[in-house]
């Protein structure tokens, strides 16, 4: 049974894509009301973990409990009900290109509620104000910069006041100003709206500056977890290599290959 202190508890999670194992025996808890970060090198399936939590992928085995429901056991209808309590900010923003910023944010409200247009307008403007884009309500996604598009998408994902919001690489490809804005927004929205946030990223400094608790995922499992302060003093070589961005270490610089000299001088 899930503890009331945690909104998500993942236990003994295994996930494979065709025959390739992505996760083996992942155990992870997301405390309610906190910002939890999941970090790890590129390509280890951090986004996959968010999709597993959102029920878009089914694990091979294990349980993912979200607010009392085991996501892995939910049927399609239950899953859609559970997802109303979640928001997700995709890496690309995933705004609907044929709609204005205003309509993008109004979209989930119009779909899930019967509120009048005047109330929807007020809610949308409040959400846009929270991300600093009230003035851009009439623009289309193609007219926004990358950072603005991500903030607009953030406003859309909090449109229905979810309990949990998941950020998929929110800092990727952002200039320093946009990055600073997004870092601040994640923390402020979490505290002001009483949300729980999961941030998936490999931008170490930005993540450590806002996270309350951090999991580092590598080699198909969780290799370390703790508060940012605890992780800064972690002695594991793998964690030190990742946190300090060292090019060589337990994760080798060279992709596995034959002997260099043999390869160079063997013309055949």
């Amino acid at each position, binding site marked *: 049974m899930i503890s009331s202190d945690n909104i998500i508890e993942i236990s003994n999670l295994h996930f494979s894509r065709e025959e390739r194992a992505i996760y083996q025996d992942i155990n992870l808890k997301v405390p309610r009301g906190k910002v939890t970060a999941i970090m790890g090198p590129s390509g280890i399936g951090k986004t996959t973990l968010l999709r597993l939590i*959102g029920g878009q992928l089914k694990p091979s085995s294990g349980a993912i409990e979200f607010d009392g429901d085991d996501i892995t056991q939910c049927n399609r209808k239950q899953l859609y*009900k559970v*997802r109303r309590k979640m928001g*997700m900010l995709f890496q*690309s923003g*995933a705004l609907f290109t044929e709609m204005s910023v205003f309509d993008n944010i109004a979209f*989930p409200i119009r779909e*899930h509620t019967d509120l009048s247009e005047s109330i929807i307008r007020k809610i949308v403007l409040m959400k846009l104000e929270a991300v600093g884009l009230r003035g851009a309500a009439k623009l289309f996604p193609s007219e926004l910069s990358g950072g603005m598009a991500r903030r607009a*998408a953030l406003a859309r994902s909090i449109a*229905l006041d979810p309990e949990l919001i998941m950020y998929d690489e929110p800092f990727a490809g952002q200039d320093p100003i946009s990055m600073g804005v997004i870092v601040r927004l994640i923390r402020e929205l979490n505290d002001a709206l009483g949300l729980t946030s999961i941030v998936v990223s490999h931008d170490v400094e930005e993540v450590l500056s806002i996270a309350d608790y951090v999991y580092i995922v590598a080699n198909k499992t969780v290799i370390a977890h703790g508060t940012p302060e605890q992780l800064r003093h972690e002695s594991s070589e793998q964690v030190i290599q990742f946190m300090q961005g060292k090019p060589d270490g337990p994760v080798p610089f060279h992709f596995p290959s034959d002997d260099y000299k043999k390869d160079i001088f063997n013309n055949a």
Partner: protein
Amino acid sequence: MLDKRLQSLGRHGVDFITGAGRAGALLIGALKPAGRGLKLLPLLIKQLYIVGVQSLIIIVVSGLFIGMVLSLQGYTILVGYGAEQSLGQMVALSLLRELGPVVSALLFAGRAGSALTAEIGLMKSNEQLSSLEMMAIDPLHQVIAPRFWAGIISLPLLSAIFSTVGILGGHLVGVDWLGVDTGAFWSVMQASVEWQEDIVNGGIKSLVFAVVVTWIALHKGYDAVPTSEGISKATTSTVVQSSLAILGLDFVLTALMFG
């Protein structure tokens, strides 16, 4: 060597069956009533415009030229037997039974089918479909269903327009240019074209092609590998598979209706 061939054959077989299964699940999921009724109406109207109205120009222009060519070719043959009075009958039956449903479906696959596949493939690649799912909105109802119904409604109407414009094109060449008697052109046509045999059967063909082309286009887009290469392959595959399906089914339907 034989083992590898057998393995490859088996893999293709399994891929085909799983693909067919996914396509079936897509259709069932899209057609299942979701209790959203009126919310889908604006989406359907928008898709009718994109899929149907925007295909009108290519259908009208092609119909006109095909009718004109049919009339010209028919005249040169019929005049040898002194039977040029039957030109109207020949043009109308060719268009209503065969060329109207088949050519408009082929054009529809190239114009609207490929666009549907590319659009849905791109929505998948920039995570719009995933974001709908995460907003607790089923993309099968929001994206697939309105496009499917728009295809089913549009193609039979486009096919009817194609045949009508084709007959007018035939009249233009046969009567106005080559001098066939206008009364003979229309009266022989009127006497020979049957409601059930020709018009209804042509309509049924068109409806079947609409289901097949739209289904293939939507499935290929929804199942596309979300990369530029994957979407390009899916779009090509929509046009090729739809065209082959149209021509194959046309033979089967013709054999059942007229054989």
